[in-house]
Each structure stands twice: as structure tokens, then as C-alpha cells.
């Protein structure tokens, strides 16, 4: 199996956020491929397809039509073929309790959406770098928790 890029998927119903996000990745020096879906149903339809390539990191907005981020999270955690995906909740804001709830339900990363483009690039490159460390050093993915 050969891949020379990191495969990122974003599920978010806000078009501007998607643009912001893909632009930020374009500017990073890391080799990435970014795919996006505008609601939870589209996302799960893709992931459930037989030959679909699983992303290394999935960024999930919480508030999406048709299927919410939490519903997607539950389905992904229940799936064997999706078990290697690092899941990052990418949301506008949430209380500490809500954040903790997403971790308990199986998210690895929680990111509060930065409003500043520079900050977004910094956050995204940190996520990818740490995920890479986990991957190359065989660290325990079950204990991988990160809040940015």
C-alpha cells in the first residue's frame, strides 16, 4: 500500500468554512489531499462504500443537517473498517462538558474553529504533525486525545 500524502476529509455544512479549511491546507507545506462533504449523510454514504479510501484524519462539524456530527461519530466508532481514522471534532464552540462528551463518545481531537486564517493553519499543521508522531511511533491510538 503506497500513499505519499495525508488524506483529510472535512464534513461541514458551511461552504465558507470548507473553503477556509481547504485554503489553509493548500498553504501548508505538508502533502495532503482534502475531500469535503456538506452533511453527515453524504459523509457516511462515502465512508460506507465498499472501496472507499479511509481518511487519515476526519474533521467533523457537530451541527450538520440530515445527520449530526455526534451521530456520525457513533456510527464510525461502531465500524471495523473505519477504526484507523483519527477523528477531530471541528466546531464553533462548546462548553467543557460538551467537549468532554465528544471525547467520551470516541473523538480523538477537539478543535474550536479559529476565526483567524493564520491560527487555522497553525492548528491544522499541529494536528497533522501529532497524528504523524502517533502513526510512526506506534503509540496507543486509544489514548490519543488532543484539544486545541
Amino acid at each position: 500500500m503506497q500513499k505519499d500524502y495525508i488524506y483529510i476529509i472535512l464534513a461541514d455544512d458551511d461552504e465558507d468554512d470548507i473553503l477556509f479549511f481547504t485554503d489553509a491546507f493548500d498553504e501548508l507545506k505538508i502533502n495532503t489531499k482534502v475531500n469535503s462533504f456538506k452533511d453527515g449523510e453524504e459523509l457516511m454514504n462515502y465512508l460506507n462504500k465498499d472501496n472507499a479510501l479511509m481518511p487519515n484524519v476526519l474533521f467533523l462539524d457537530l451541527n450538520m443537517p440530515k445527520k449530526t456530527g455526534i451521530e456520525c461519530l457513533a456510527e464510525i466508532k461502531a465500524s471495523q473498517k473505519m477504526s484507523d481514522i483519527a477523528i477531530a471534532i471541528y466546531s464553533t464552540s462548546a462548553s467543557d462538558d460538551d467537549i468532554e462528551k465528544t471525547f467520551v463518545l470516541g473523538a480523538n481531537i477537539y478543535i474550536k474553529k479559529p476565526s483567524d486564517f493564520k491560527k487555522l493553519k497553525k492548528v491544522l499543521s499541529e494536528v497533522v504533525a501529532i497524528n504523524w508522531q502517533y502513526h510512526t511511533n506506534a503509540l496507543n491510538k486509544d489514548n490519543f486525545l488532543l484539544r486545541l
Partner: protein
Amino acid sequence: MKLFLKFDFNTLSKKVLESKLDEQNLEYKILGFGEIELIKKLTPEDYDALQSSLHDYGIEIVESQKSILVQKIKDMIINMVFNENIDLKVKSSVYLSKNIGHSYGYLSNLFSEMTYSSIGNFIIIQKIEYVKHLILNTELNLTEIAFKLNYSSVAHLSTQFKNATGITPSAFQRIIFKRRKLAKQKTK
């Protein structure tokens, strides 16, 4: 009947390489100029198997001094962090350079060049990994864990943990325990 062949050795060797690496289910990136990057470290068994399967095709693995050294640094750091018998009061730079036999400056530059990360960062990652393990799998409290890993105080440990993960050690413990509870409920 005679056939005349032309060989494109670049394509030939790449295809052979890909097929041998795929056979062993390895994740890799072919960098060109006879260099492959393996995403995960090879077990000695996998290394031997790969070496012998490539040997059949006349391909020999050249031991890269640099990657051997980097692996040594990583192994030594992991040993230093996870081994209870090593006195962590010795500075890691001194420990590494003394045991590997190169100046710390050299080791540090080499590590950064080869891993896109620093020795310092790697040490912190390993320490936090160990802290997580101790929190989840032993009855030690944070003070005892801080002492065991030679942090100057619990506050120092909590700060480093929070800097690395964004959450406190106690939040981490709470989350993982809730996850386990949830998993148990599901299997009932």
C-alpha cells in the same frame, strides 16, 4: 524466433520493489535514488524477510548509518523514560551523548533532519505516553507519578501534560474511565 528487448531499469526496479513491499503489507513511500521510507519501524523478522526477498532480485539493503543512529536515539529515549532503574536525574542530553558516543549537538541535528521533529519533543511525547499508561493502569496518584518521572512537582507534570494534549491529567482519566463504562454498557 528471436525477440529483441529494451529494458527500462527504473520502471523494472520500481515494480519489483513495490511488489515485494506490498507482499509484506508494508506502508511505504518510494523516494527515488534507491531510498524508501517505511512509515512504521520494521520488526527484525520483517526486515530479514524483506532483505531476503529483495536479495532474490539482486537488490541489497544498504544500512543507512543515519537511520540506524536515529533509531538508537529513539530506543534509548524510550528506555530512559520507561525503565525504572535509570536515574532520570541525569540530563537526557548527557545520557544520550554518553551512551551513543556522539556530541549532543550532532545527535540533535541529525534527529531533526531525519524525523521532522526534535529530540526534546520526542522525549515529551514518550513521557506523556507513560504518564497516560500509569494513570490508566496503576493505582498511583499524580504526585506519585510526578515523582516517578522526575518532574519537579505535580504542577510541572500537569502543565506539561496540558501543553501536550490540551486537557488536564484528571480530565484525561475521567474521559477514559467514562469511555470504558460506556463500552461495558454496550456489551451487556
